[in-house]
């Protein structure tokens, strides 16, 4: 079965997932600098979905044995201190070995990163506008940032197959996750759920990664986060901020906005703040505009 072998390849890959090349040198620079501010540290980690996931994994691992799940870096930095979190980030970024570039890559990593960041920032801004309490805002950010994390193993462990997947999505004009199921027998939501399980990220982050397309099937306690991330994902695709491979994203039913009590038109007001956040990140990483 192609599906089974794909699943095995994806599982294998998850264990050694590398950070995005965009941020690695910045992580080294920020973490090696003794004058790094907590804000710089937070920013450099939260700009990289893979690194963020791995740092959260370590923080929540049995290593620290913290009673409650920590889904926010702000909290982790205050609880464990700048030095500890710096060490976590440094070791995560340094230990990662880059996979070779020889394989075909369907996904452009820079585009993926922008899309993820946009979804994270948008999810947080929507939550803020809706009056979600401030201590939960970072969870919305993390869930948005990591929602497509499952695409990384598909893109890298199944590189050639994933190029075909994209061609199928293009040919049949379907959303990427539909084409993934057709060609690979597993989609990025399945892969995202596998990562969340491997990294011990249960709760909202895991649910958003798994159900951001199939939100109507999800009735769990993190429904608010899942729906918000679905909206943020829709917004990032609609505005073309970054590109995570989905040329034909599903339309969002109006009930989603109704349930969130958030007017669709209010998305227009997010344009300025979202762009400002992404610009800040670009300046921080010194990327080309």
């Amino acid at each position, binding site marked *: 079965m192609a599906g089974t072998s794909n699943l095995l390849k994806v599982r294998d890959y998850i264990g050694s997932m590398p950070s995005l090349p965009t941020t690695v040198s910045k992580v080294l620079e920020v973490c090696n600098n003794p004058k790094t501010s907590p*804000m710089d540290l937070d920013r450099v980690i939260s700009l990289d979905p893979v690194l963020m996931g791995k740092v959260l994994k370590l923080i929540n691992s049995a290593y620290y*044995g913290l009673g409650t799940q920590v889904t926010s870096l*702000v909290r982790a930095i*205050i*609880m*464990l*201190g700048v030095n*500890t979190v710096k060490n976590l980030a440094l070791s995560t970024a340094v230990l990662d070995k880059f996979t070779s570039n020889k394989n075909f890559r369907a996904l452009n990593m820079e585009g993926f990163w922008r899309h993820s960041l946009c979804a994270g920032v948008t999810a947080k801004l929507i939550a803020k506008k809706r009056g979600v309490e401030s201590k939960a805002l970072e969870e919305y950010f993390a869930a948005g940032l990591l929602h497509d994390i499952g695409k990384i193993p598909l893109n890298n462990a199944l590189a050639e197959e994933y190029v075909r997947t994209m061609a199928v999505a293009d040919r049949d004009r379907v959303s990427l996750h539909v084409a993934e199921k057709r060609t690979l027998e597993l989609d990025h939501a399945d892969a995202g759920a596998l990562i969340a399980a491997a990294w011990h990220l249960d709760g909202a982050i895991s649910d958003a990664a798994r159900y951001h397309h199939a939100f109507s099937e999800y009735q769990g306690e993190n429904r608010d986060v899942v729906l918000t991330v679905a909206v943020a994902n829709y917004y990032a695709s609609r505005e073309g901020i970054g590109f995570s491979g989905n040329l034909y994203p599903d339309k969002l039913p109006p009930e989603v906005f109704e349930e969130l009590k958030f007017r669709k038109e209010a998305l227009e007001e997010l344009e300025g703040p979202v762009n400002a956040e992404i610009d800040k990140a670009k300046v921080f990483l010194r990327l080309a505009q």
Partner: protein
Amino acid sequence: MFTVKIWGDRGSMPTPGPDTVEFGGNTSCIEVRCGKRLIIIDAGSGIRQLGDSLMRTDFRAGPIKADIFITHTHWDHIMGFPMFTPIYVPGTELRIRGPITYEEDPLEKVIGSQLSYRYWPVRQEELAAKITYEQIKESTFDLGDGIWLTTKYLNHPILCLGYRFEYRGRSFVTLYDNEPFRNVFPTDPEDPQYDESYAREGEEAAREQNEKILAFMSGADLLVHDTQYTAKEYVSGKVGWGHSSFEHAINAAHKAQVKRLLLFHHDPNRTDTELQELEIFYQAKLRGRTSMSVEMSREGRLYTIDPVE
């Protein structure tokens, strides 16, 4: 019997000399007795004299068996270990537990590597005692013989645990090295790095952690609390160093309805005269305002915590 004896209460570095006779110059080491059980907290330079004392007393009845809990692995809390005589005596059994910060070396290496030829004439492998090491986290442990231990992460530049021992209805708590948790994110809107949600979440996280610390020390019969600085010293350049002020410790302990507070981890530059003056000053300020007893920790002093009858 539930007793606590201070063998070292100095912070950072041993400070022998005529200015530290009354309050002591050895770095942290506390002997706790719960019935027949011997528990040692920290292996600062004070553990040398504790070891010699154990050889003169307990050893007569048989080999030394002890649980050692290290608050954290900063040097002043582990430096006395190579001079703890029982480690050279066959039959000694030590179970050493403590936290380690995220790094690749286990506790055994972090503490035990002091016993290597580079630093010391005897290697760890040559010790006669049976020693086990165990990394511990925030949790609750049944130590047997009716002794319960709860641990709590404190705020210090590396992972550091506070210890709360419960025995026969009474409690003894150590809260050092610890600085009150604080929001490390900018709170001034004029700051170029200011972000409202970070500022707010940082405030909440710090407040929650401080509340957890209060709950951790709540109602303690005896509390040993970090008081390296005065409030004035703390704000003039010591923020972020991982230590508390007298004012903070006293207020927090009073709020947590602690019964007896020992001010601990004396600054290495603080003389006997200064510590005496500070003790008189704070005791006078507190007179009639709290039922909590407050005193400076004194090396060599024994404190008895009566079990509930």
